[in-house]
């Protein structure tokens, strides 16, 4: 790699975001502060986009830059706070001490390596993002469900896949009970076997996969490519289609579909917090009503 373009873009955007953040703080005029905050939010939205968080990026623009900042500006205008002279900054120790402490804060985090060396070992380049077809333990999102499905073998595809697995693993699956969380070994076994299936011969057979809804990408690949060259890719996609929720389809990690499915899947821990945000918003509404009423 001669020149890392993406790094350069990153640094440019990072510079803009830090600069706009600094200007939010440094500006005396609250209107300008708000506008620089909008700039900052937009830059963050771009970052989100590149971090495979398409949905969040959209929400960032709509909710933050759109709704929230408009509200801020509205209040500033309402209170007629455009004139910055009203709030002359006073001298004193507060500012230097505050800045010094904040710098100590970030540098202690940085120097101690909290932000740079703290990440647990993981693949340098995520499989499904860079196209590698292999699974890791983390790709198995719902190990319990995967184990259940494999054990039950309700449809021919699942049953076939299970039968292809190592007899020992099959025994383990048979012994798996719903009430237990799958052990780490079982997860590793399943991952290893899935990777073996990916490596193995083409899994596709129209009969076998008749009850599986194939994604458009899979169909395209099945129709067009020569079976030999894209065997691994096809196998991976087929497995994803058989276990749509249980294993990652991380090339679409940030899509509305993934997020929506995760959000409303009773087996994932997001349903409750999602419902709770409605309570939170209710508190917000009631609170604003109380605050907005005239005195007395």
């Amino acid at each position: 790699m001669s020149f890392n373009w993406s790094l350069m873009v990153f640094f440019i955007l990072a510079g803009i975001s830090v600069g706009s953040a600094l200007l939010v703080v440094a500006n005396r005029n609250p209107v300008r502060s708000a506008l620089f905050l909008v700039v900052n939010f937009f830059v963050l939205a771009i970052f989100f986009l590149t971090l495979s968080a398409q949905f969040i990026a959209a929400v960032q623009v709509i909710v933050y830059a759109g709704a929230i900042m408009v509200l801020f500006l509205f209040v500033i205008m309402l209170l007629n706070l455009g004139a910055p002279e009203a709030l002359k900054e006073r001298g004193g120790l507060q500012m230097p001490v505050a800045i010094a402490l904040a710098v100590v804060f970030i540098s202690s985090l940085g120097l101690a390596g909290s932000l740079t060396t703290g990440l647990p070992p993981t693949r340098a380049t995520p499989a499904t993002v860079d196209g590698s077809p292999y699974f890791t333990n983390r790709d198995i999102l719902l190990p319990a469900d995967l184990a259940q499905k494999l054990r039950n073998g309700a449809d021919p595809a699942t049953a076939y896949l299970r039968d292809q697995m190592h007899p020992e693993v099959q025994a383990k699956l048979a012994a798996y009970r719903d009430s237990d969380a799958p052990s780490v070994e079982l997860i590793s076994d399943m991952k290893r076997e899935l990777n073996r299936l990916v490596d193995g011969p083409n899994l596709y057979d129209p009969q076998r996969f008749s009850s599986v809804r194939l994604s458009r990408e899979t169909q395209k690949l099945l129709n067009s490519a020569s079976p030999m060259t894209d065997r691994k890719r096809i196998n991976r996609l087929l497995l994803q289609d058989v276990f749509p929720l249980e294993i990652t389809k991380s090339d679409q990690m940030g899509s509305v579909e993934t997020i929506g499915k995760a959000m409303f899947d009773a087996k994932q821990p997001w349903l409750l917090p999602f419902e709770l945000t409605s309570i939170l918003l209710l508190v917000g509404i009631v609170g604003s009503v109380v605050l907005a009423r005239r005195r007395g």
Partner: protein
Amino acid sequence: MPGSPTIWDDLTLILPLIVLWITSFVLLLGDVVVWKKNRDLNPILAIVGTLIALGIAVYQTISLTGDKAFARSLNMDALAQVSMIALLVTGLLAILLAWTYLKNRGLERGEYYPLMLLSVSGAALMGAANDLIVLFIGLEILSFALYVMAGFSRSDIRSEEASIKYFLLGAFASAFLLYGIALVYGATQTTQLSELASRVHSAQTPMLVAGIGLLIVGLGFKAAVIPFHQWTPDVYEGAPTSVTAYMAGAAKIAAFVAMLRVFDSLAPVSSVWLGAIQALAVLTMVFGNLLAIAQTNVKRMLAYSSIAHAGYLMVAIATLAHRLDGPRGAQAGELAMTGSLFYLFAYTFMTLGAFGVLIYLSNRGKDYQQIEDLRGLVRHDPRTAYAMLFFMLSLGGIPPTMGFMGKWQIFYAALSGGEIMLAIVMALTSVMAAFYYLKIVYVMCFEEPREAAPAPAQFSFGASLSVLLSAAATILFGIMPGLLYTLTGLVR
């Protein structure tokens, strides 16, 4: 699928919360649409709703149906259930107090009780959270309602000041908490507490350490631990007294139950955080008590006292660190859990009782806030004075009150866990506490009333009942701690 939990089982587990939510909807709509003028219906319905929720919670606790719920985002174990009971009791007493207080002030706005019930549910969620993000949302539900309630007295500039101080500092603190959650997630790839417990040991990276530090900050703010405490006296003083009473009890319970949960699952890396918790505990005990001495306003004094009590509870958290050090440590950890729950019950009863006395007295038209206002109370209102005396003795940890029993349990836990130094500091600072609690007793009993014969306080059902219930509990559970221990002892 038979055997595995369905969504209905999950919903059953949070049935008390659902009752609270439904009650708040009914109150919100009813106040605007149905019974526009009949203001007394609001507290009555709120009480009914809380009582139903309390009944369900007690039933569920006794029948021990608790389990993880909502795909492990909630952990409705005994700790969650018992803390929910504590919160509902706090809510109940606070509604009774508010009934009197709001009526006296002409503040009977329909939104008060729904806000309070919603915040109770938020606090209960904090106590039940098995996921840091649920904890965060619970905390925000609790806090948002409290920010608004602190500023509920719109004609009082102090109330608004309390509101904005609480809001800005609270939001600041919760940003730190959130950053802490993010770093813990980065270090362990999970935010579920039950998962954390098994992962933290192998993930002792600087990122985890910094994350834990920020969690301490975020939760320490809510719990009013020094040096994250400075909002406490101002907000306690400025907020309407009924809100202060509620806030003192509910926020303390929620923050400490959440802390117990978090640090229980962080016990495998206790060597990392124990020192900081110990230091904060000492700091909080010493300065909380010290600062309370010079106060002349009862509400402010009780605010510093609440800080001091947070210090005692931090001793329990520090004891939790020894949970994995052999059988003695495990026993100490259990004791710290059960002891702090007992203590939280005690704290909520005696604090709400003390504020209740202020509210009851304010029934005379004048606001009773200064210690001076209580001069010679025993002469013209002996019953109220004795109730206050009892709450002060209990807050001071003098037997045979509930406060003593609670303090003793934490003391005992600290001793069994080997936190000898903290136990000694706790004993010494308790003496310091005698200075200011007894100042009130002294002023009430040994000084002449300023006015010859102030008008007797009008009888007010809400405040009287609330004070009576608190006093009864403080005495009963002080003499017979076993009764409450059957409940708090479930938390192991």
